């Protein structure tokens, strides 16, 4: 069958190839392979040329020694805090304060954090007896932060030794930078097969994808797991709005203020990802709903001409909506096309599509390896064996979740009943159409 599919492929003309495999050759390959490849070819040498600028920024950083407030909002995540505290103590940039906000945990989080606070390992621990949601917890921390920069990090994450130092450099290199996204990688990839797959996904979409978007000036999200902000900007916008998806929301708000949003791949943070496909599905369902809620509803004004219109912001949201929401339909169209026009070759088309996407994933993996080498980090060689499974993961599993999330959010606004937020908050958010 595979041999027949290969014969089928080599007998196709150029137009036939496009006709049969247009979703891959005209959309995905162009957007995620060619475009990213070209940008990376420009970015990587340019980054090397900027080494002197980075060095100057580093010198300035250690000369000025601005205080950094590391804020960690979370619920029932006390067991992860000691590891985070430990990696913070090993940071090459030691001028930070650690503020942990417990959002109504019902486990041992308060006891763990109080002990760490007593031992001087947490500078400020605040326990909110009543759960208010992630935004409320982050805003509580912001209220008491004294640093010039705010680093928001998830409790179940920890940092590379130079992470704090490197995430601050973009602020010093460009005064217009409002927030910087750190490179989030998978900490617990050895725990399960699902985590292994996510490790590859994170390297593709965060390390490569966000670096490229940042270079193009269209980065739309600074991950809630690890990102740095200027405190004056956060105070000007009064912190985070109600989520889920508050990280993408605040990034767009900062963009709308006219500040740049950049990704710093050299600043690495490791986070724990869901280890089962059920938990992963729930997480992605939440994330995908927020895309509709925030980009299509709350920040749709970015798409309309106005005084504050910026083309980069327009492209940021349009890129997201086009490739994620609109092109989600392309598979329905493609499916009907195959059934109607090419039903005799269905098997060949599936095999060849799978082959093309494996190749595309392989190329993307090579991009990530190139980036890691250029950042003097060790490429994830052993993850290459999971590449052949990526089309099933991204093309089927994640796509199904995404499609379901879009439908549920568009028709039923399910993000307002997500238990990620307390019910009292979701109810008000829905009533006020936030």
């Amino acid at each position: 069958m595979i041999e027949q599919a290969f014969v089928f492929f080599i007998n196709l003309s150029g137009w036939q190839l496009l006709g049969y495999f247009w979703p891959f050759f005209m959309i995905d390959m162009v957007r995620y392979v060619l475009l990213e490849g070209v940008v990376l070819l420009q970015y990587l040498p340019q980054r090397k040329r900027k080494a002197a600028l980075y060095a100057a920024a580093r010198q300035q950083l250690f000369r000025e020694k601005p205080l950094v407030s590391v804020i960690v909002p979370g619920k029932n995540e006390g067991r992860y805090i000691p590891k985070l505290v430990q990696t913070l103590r090993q940071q090459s940039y030691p001028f930070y304060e650690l503020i942990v906000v417990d959002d109504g945990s019902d486990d041992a989080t308060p006891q763990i954090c109080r002990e760490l606070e007593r031992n001087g390992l947490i500078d400020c621990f605040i326990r909110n007896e009543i759960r208010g949601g992630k935004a409320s917890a982050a805003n509580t921390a912001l209220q008491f932060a004294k640093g010039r920069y705010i680093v928001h990090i998830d409790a179940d994450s920890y940092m590379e030794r130079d992470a704090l130092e490197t995430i601050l450099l973009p602020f010093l290199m460009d005064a217009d930078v409002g927030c910087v996204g750190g490179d989030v990688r998978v900490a617990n990839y050895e725990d399960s097969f699902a985590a292994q797959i996510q490790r590859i996904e994170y390297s593709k979409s965060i390390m490569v994808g966000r670096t490229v978007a940042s270079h193009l000036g269209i980065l739309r999200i600074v991950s809630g797991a690890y990102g740095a902000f200027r405190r004056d900007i956060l105070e000007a916008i009064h912190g985070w709005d109600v989520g889920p998806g508050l990280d993408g929301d605040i990034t767009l708000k900062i963009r709308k203020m006219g500040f740049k949003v950049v990704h710093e791949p050299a600043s690495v943070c490791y986070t724990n990802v869901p280890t089962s496909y059920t938990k992963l599905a729930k997480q992605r369902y939440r994330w995908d709903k927020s895309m509709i809620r925030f980009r299509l509803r709350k920040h749709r004004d970015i798409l309309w001409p106005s005084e504050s219109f910026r083309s980069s912001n327009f492209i940021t949201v349009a890129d997201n909506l086009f490739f994620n929401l609109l092109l989600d339909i392309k598979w329905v169209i493609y499916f009907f096309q195959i059934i109607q026009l090419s039903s005799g070759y269905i098997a060949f088309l599936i095999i060849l599509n799978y082959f093309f996407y494996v190749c595309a994933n392989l190329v993307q993996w090579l991009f990530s390896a190139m980036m890691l080498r250029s950042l003097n980090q060790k490429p994830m060689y052993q993850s290459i064996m999971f590449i052949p499974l990526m089309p099933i993961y991204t093309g089927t599993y994640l796509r199904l979740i995404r499609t379901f999330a879009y439908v549920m959010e568009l028709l039923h606004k399910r993000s307002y009943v997500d238990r990620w937020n307390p019910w009292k908050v979701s109810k008000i958010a829905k009533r006020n159409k936030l």
Partner: protein
Amino acid sequence: MMKQPLQLVFAQNNRSLLQATTTFESLDKVDWQQVSCLLLDATDISTAYAALVKLRQNSLPHCYLRPVVFVANTERHNGWQWHAADAVLVLQGEHLLDPALVPDNLETINRWIDNLPQQERGADGHLQVKVLRLLASRQTSAEPQATPSNYNGYVYPLLQPVFSLQDMGVMQTLGFLEQQNLLSATLFDRAHFCIHCDSAFLNFKETCVACGSHDLDVVELVHHFSCGFTADITRFKAGGDALICPKCDKHLRHIGVDYDKPSTVNKCRLCQHVSQDGNVVAKCFNCDCSTEARFLDVRRINSYKLTSVGLNAAFYGLKTYFTDILENELQLLSLREFELFANAEAARIARYGKSQSALAVVRFVGLDKIQMELGSKAKQIFTELADIFKSILRETDIITAYNESMFAILMPETSQNNAALALNRLQKAVEQLFSENFDRSLDIQQHALAVTSELQVRDALERFLNQ
């Protein structure tokens, strides 16, 4: 039938009601069998209490166990001292006291005293035995009472007068008796005590964990559901009393509906440090020392009831005491008998003027604590101590116990210097005993004085005790 109450005057105002001629110094001459109770003029409660202390610290069970009634001229009885007496009578009219008002149940105390075995009726300086007997004779338990007048914060009114400043505290004694299974304890309260001075008067205050300052602001946080903004409540009060969200300018109307208060935090005014877990420090009113709350001494304040063993001990005494052992080994005399011998010797010397005799006083500081620590094993040490006494003293020497740790020795035909030498030998022998056998020392206070016609043994012992 009521016996005639003995009325004693210890207060200086000498009211006509209290006309008895018996004075405090002549208590030992009283025929206690005829005394139903002692009435103390409690016009001034502190004077009355001081008199009660003297009574309770007497060594004769007939005296210290005798029911004591405060006679008050007012219905208002503030202060724990009022509860130290067995009853309080209120004077009816200017000088009238109706004997029928004296409670009948005081007679049960007298019956208990009368039933004491004959050998137990002699002078008794044992604090522990006194405590047991006071409880047993009154068929009551030792109930603590909170009070601001005692730096411990609690007193046991009935037992407090038994103890002088020199003695081990009431709580320690009761604790010891509990350890010996003579008393059983029931939790009454838990209290924090200063580790420096044992005072219970502590000012607890939260201090900044960063700088130790107690100048803290308690800040209430407000969470506005609609926009997620969370901040200090003062930031929502820009509009006066109404709460207005500084982020979205909306009025916050109903707590729980559109906003809540998730927590409060302490903000240091000095260093601006924010924390919810303030360091709780206790500053002692007595010694002015500050101690972190977690280092304070937390003790159980118990009420104590006599056990059956304790009841037995109250009746028959404790046989492991040093004075008991000395009594067996050295024929310990009662204080009264000792005074008679001392007076006779003083008269003899005054008459013939040919010889001199000495009164030696020795006090073992903390002997009661040794007993507490060692329990029944203390008997071995006390036997050793008694042997030292035996080896130092001559057959003509006479010894008495003022209390369980203070002893007086009458040394006939002995100069003051020679008596001092004998006491030094005694001290060295005791020190050697403790240094060779125990990992601790025993403080000894000693004094020798010449026996003269002016000598008043009891006064001399009292002065020595209060030095």
